[in-house]
C-alpha cells in the first residue's frame, strides 16, 4: 500500500480509491455497460465489488454533500465504463477485500485534484478607523487596556514583507531570506516582498496605525519575518524559516501556507514548536469543504478558516473531519478572511480573500494575550482563544468548528 494511501486511511478512516477492473471482467459485462460514457452508478454485475465501498461520514464525498446541504447522499461508488474503473471511498478492510476479489486488476489511491484558485485581490482604500476584521475580533477592547502586543515577537513566514510601508515601519525586528536548502542568505537584505501576499499578512499581524487608521491586530508587536515561498518553492525553505524564527525567540508562528492534503512529516515538528513555547497558528486552506492542508490540519496546530462580514464561513474556506480522538474537525476556528484590507507593497492598501488573511488575525490576537498574560503556556493561550469562540447562528460546526473568537472573552478566560 502506498504511503499516501496509508496516511489517508490513518487520518480519515477512509480513502478514495480507483479499482481497475481486469480485462476478463470488463469483457464479461454486457455491451451496453461497456459502451456507455460518463460516470454512473455501479451496474448490477459489479455489485459484488461495489459492496466493499462505503459512504463514510468522514469521507470527502459525504462532507461535500453535507456542506452543500444536498438532499441525498452521493452513491458510494461510481463506474466509468470507458475507463473500466470504479471510483469510491473504502476503508482499510474494504481495500483489502477489493484487492482479494476476482476481477480486480489493481487498487490505487485516487489523488485529490483541485483547481488552483486565484486569490481575489482588489484595490482598496482604508476608509475606516478599524478594518471590519478588527471590529469583529474586538481587538480594540484589549488595546484600551494597554494590551497591544508590545514585547511579543511573532514569526511570519511568507513571500517577504515591504518593511518601508508606512504601516510596517519599525514593525520588523528581523528579516531573513532562505535559500533552497533552508540556509539563511547573507548578507541579509532589507525587508522586501517577492509578491504582495506577505506584506498583506504582515500588516494584519502588526500593522501600525497610519493617519489614525488601523489594519494590525497587534500594533505594537514585532515580526521575525522570512521569505520562504515564491516561484520554485521547496520544503527546506519552509523548515529553514521555522527554525530561524524559533531561534529568534518568537512566541507565535503565523503560517499562511500549507501543503495540500495530509503530510505526516510536519506533525512532529508542530508538536516540537509547542514544546518550545511557540503557538503554531496555521491556515487551513482555500479548497472548500472536505479538504485541508498540512500543517494546518494537525491536532497540534491552531488551524484557522475564513469567515465574511456576516460571519458566514467563506465558500472557499477548507474544513475536514479526521478519524482521531482529539480535535477531529479542522479548522479549530474561523476568523475574518473575506475582503480583508491590509498593506500593499510600495504603499497603499488592497483587499484580499483567503484563510491566509484569517490566520494573522488569530496570531495577532494570541500576541495580545501573551503580552497581557506572559506566564501563560501555549496550551493555555490556545484554550482561552477556543473558550472565547461562539458559533454564529446557522453555521455548522463541521465548517466553523468552534466558531468566531473574541478578544475580550479570551482575556477573561485567562483571568
Amino acid at each position, binding site marked *: 500500500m502506498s504511503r499516501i494511501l496509508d496516511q489517508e486511511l490513518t487520518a480519515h478512516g477512509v480513502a478514495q480509491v480507483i479499482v481497475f477492473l481486469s480485462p476478463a471482467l470488463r469483457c464479461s459485462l454486457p455491451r451496453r455497460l461497456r459502451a456507455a460514457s460518463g460516470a454512473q452508478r455501479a451496474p448490477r454485475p459489479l455489485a459484488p465489488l461495489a459492496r466493499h465501498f462505503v459512504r463514510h461520514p468522514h469521507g470527502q464525498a459525504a462532507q461535500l454533500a453535507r456542506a452543500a446541504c444536498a438532499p441525498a447522499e452521493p452513491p458510494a461508488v461510481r463506474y466509468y465504463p470507458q475507463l473500466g474503473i470504479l471510483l469510491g471511498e473504502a476503508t482499510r478492510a474494504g481495500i483489502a477485500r477489493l484487492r482479494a476479489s476476482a476481477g480486480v486488476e489493481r487498487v490505487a489511491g485516487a489523488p485529490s485534484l483541485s483547481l488552483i484558485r486565484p486569490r481575489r485581490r482588489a484595490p482598496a482604500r482604508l476608509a475606516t478607523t478599524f478594518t471590519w476584521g478588527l471590529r469583529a475580533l474586538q481587538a480594540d477592547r484589549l488595546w484600551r487596556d494597554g494590551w497591544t502586543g508590545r514585547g511579543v515577537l511573532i514569526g511570519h513566514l511568507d513571500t517577504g514583507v515591504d518593511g518601508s510601508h508606512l504601516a510596517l515601519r519599525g514593525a520588523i525586528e528581523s528579516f531573513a531570506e532562505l535559500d533552497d536548502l533552508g540556509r539563511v542568505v547573507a548578507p541579509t537584505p532589507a525587508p522586501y516582498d517577492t509578491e504582495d501576499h506577505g506584506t498583506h499578512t504582515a500588516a494584519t499581524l502588526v500593522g501600525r496605525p497610519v493617519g489614525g487608521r488601523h489594519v494590525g491586530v497587534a500594533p505594537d508587536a514585532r515580526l521575525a519575518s522570512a521569505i520562504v*515561498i515564491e516561484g520554485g518553492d521547496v*520544503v*527546506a525553505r519552509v523548515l*529553514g524559516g521555522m527554525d530561524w524564527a524559533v531561534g529568534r525567540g518568537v512566541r507565535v508562528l503565523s503560517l499562511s*501556507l500549507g501543503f495540500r492534503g495530509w*503530510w505526516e*512529516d510536519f506533525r*512532529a515538528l508542530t508538536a516540537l514548536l509547542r514544546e518550545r513555547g511557540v503557538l503554531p497558528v496555521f*491556515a487551513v486552506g482555500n479548497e472548500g469543504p472536505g479538504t485541508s492542508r498540512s500543517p494546518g490540519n494537525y491536532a497540534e496546530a491552531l488551524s484557522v478558516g475564513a469567515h465574511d462580514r456576516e460571519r458566514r464561513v467563506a465558500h472557499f474556506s477548507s474544513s475536514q473531519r479526521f478519524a482521531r480522538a482529539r480535535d477531529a474537525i479542522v479548522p479549530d476556528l474561523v476568523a475574518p478572511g473575506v475582503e480583508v484590507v491590509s498593506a500593499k507593497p510600495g504603499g497603499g492598501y488592497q483587499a484580499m480573500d483567503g484563510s491566509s488573511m484569517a490566520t494573522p488575525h488569530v496570531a495577532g490576537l494570541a500576541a495580545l494575550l501573551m503580552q497581557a498574560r506572559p506566564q501563560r503556556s501555549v496550551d493555555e493561550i490556545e484554550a482561552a482563544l477556543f473558550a472565547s469562540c461562539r458559533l454564529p447562528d446557522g453555521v455548522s460546526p463541521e465548517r466553523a468548528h468552534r466558531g468566531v473568537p473574541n478578544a475580550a472573552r479570551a482575556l477573561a478566560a485567562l483571568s
Partner: protein
Amino acid sequence: MSQPRDEASAQVDPSLLRELEDAERAARPLEAVVFLRRGEAAGAPTPDQTERAVAKLLRSAERDTGERAAAVSVFRNLHSFALAASPSFIRSVLRDERVASARSNRGASAPDR
C-alpha cells in the same frame, strides 16, 4: 549506538524514492529533507543534541559510502536537516535508525498559499 540498517524503516516519501532512482540513472546528486527520531530522553531535543545527532549520522554515511554530502543545512530547533548529496549517500542516510522520515526537497509536494 545507532547502526545502519539493511533496509530503510524510515517513512520515505514516494517522490523521494522516485527521485533517487532517477538520480541513480543520471548519476547526479539530489536534495532531501530528513526528520530525526526523538530519543528516549524526556523533553524536546535541544539544538545541541540535534547538531550532534546530525553530525553522527553524516559521519556514519561517510564511512558507509566513502563520500561526503555536497551541502547540509541543520534545523537545530526542529530536529531535522536538509542535504544535497549523491543517491548512494542519501540511501545510506535513510537506512540509519535515527531517521524517522524523509522527503524530497522539491517537486510536486511544494507548498502553496
